[in-house]
């Protein structure tokens, strides 16, 4: 290898190492700072630039909602276990299974309604513009995934369903 080309190759490697090192260090420090926090509401504070008063009000709502959410989750999990056991036993009538499925769906509906009501309460505690953005984002995240599944089932996989 000729000398100038060798110098340029070494210089490129050094430049890459310098850039990579700086990038990695800065990334690590910032990511660690975010990961160390244990406050559930950090994201709201960062994303929606809330004042301390707004955050205190939202924390109140959040703390009030969590036990309800947890209770709903426990009820849904218990009902799902019951349904799975009934399906596994295969001695239950279709009507019993249908009833249990209806109960699971009702619990999920109640949970979802309460969750959406909570999102609306939180959005009202924010400045109007940020509140709307929060509500849209939360609906997109929590309900969007389910809608995507529905769309995929009614779209491309429609033909496959017809054949079964």
């Amino acid at each position, binding site marked *: 290898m*000729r*000398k*100038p*080309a060798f*110098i*340029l190759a070494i*210089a490129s490697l*050094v*430049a890459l190492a*310098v*850039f*990579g*090192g*700086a*990038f*990695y*260090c*800065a*990334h*690590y*420090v*910032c*990511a660690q*700072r*975010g*990961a160390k*926090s244990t406050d*559930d*509401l*950090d*994201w*709201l504070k*960062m*994303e929606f630039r809330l004042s301390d008063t707004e955050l205190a009000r939202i924390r109140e709502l*959040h703390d009030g*909602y*969590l036990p309800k*959410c*947890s209770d*709903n*989750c426990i009820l*849904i*999990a218990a009902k799902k276990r019951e349904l799975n056991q009934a399906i596994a036993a295969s001695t239950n009538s279709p009507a019993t299974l249908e009833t249990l499925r209806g109960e699971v769906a009702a619990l*999920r509906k109640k*949970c*979802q309604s309460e*969750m959406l009501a*909570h*999102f609306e309460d939180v959005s009202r505690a924010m400045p109007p513009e940020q509140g709307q953005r929060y509500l849209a984002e*939360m609906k997109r*995240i*929590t309900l969007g*995934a389910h809608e995507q599944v529905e769309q995929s089932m009614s779209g491309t996989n429609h033909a496959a369903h017809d054949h079964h």
Partner: protein
Amino acid sequence: MNTDKSNPNDAALRKILREGRPTPGLPPRFQANVWQRIERGESGANASWIEALAALVLKPRFAFATASALVLIGALLGMWEGSAHARQTAQARYIESVAMSMSR
């Protein structure tokens, strides 16, 4: 000058003069050097900018400025990426806390 009027012995005289003039010998590795120059001439454009860049890279002021710029750009990009990552982690934590049933 009219060559017809020149002395017929001129040719012989010129020969004697040429033989009398000392001619220097070829320098060592003359042929190899000629080939090197021909090759350099063929790849002249490439070699010139690579050499110029290599010379620039070796200048301490340029090297220091480049390294500083790379550290700055790398750190800024790293901070930006790290903040986005931290934001995603915080968002996931919030969603997990308020929509526990969605993840089950």
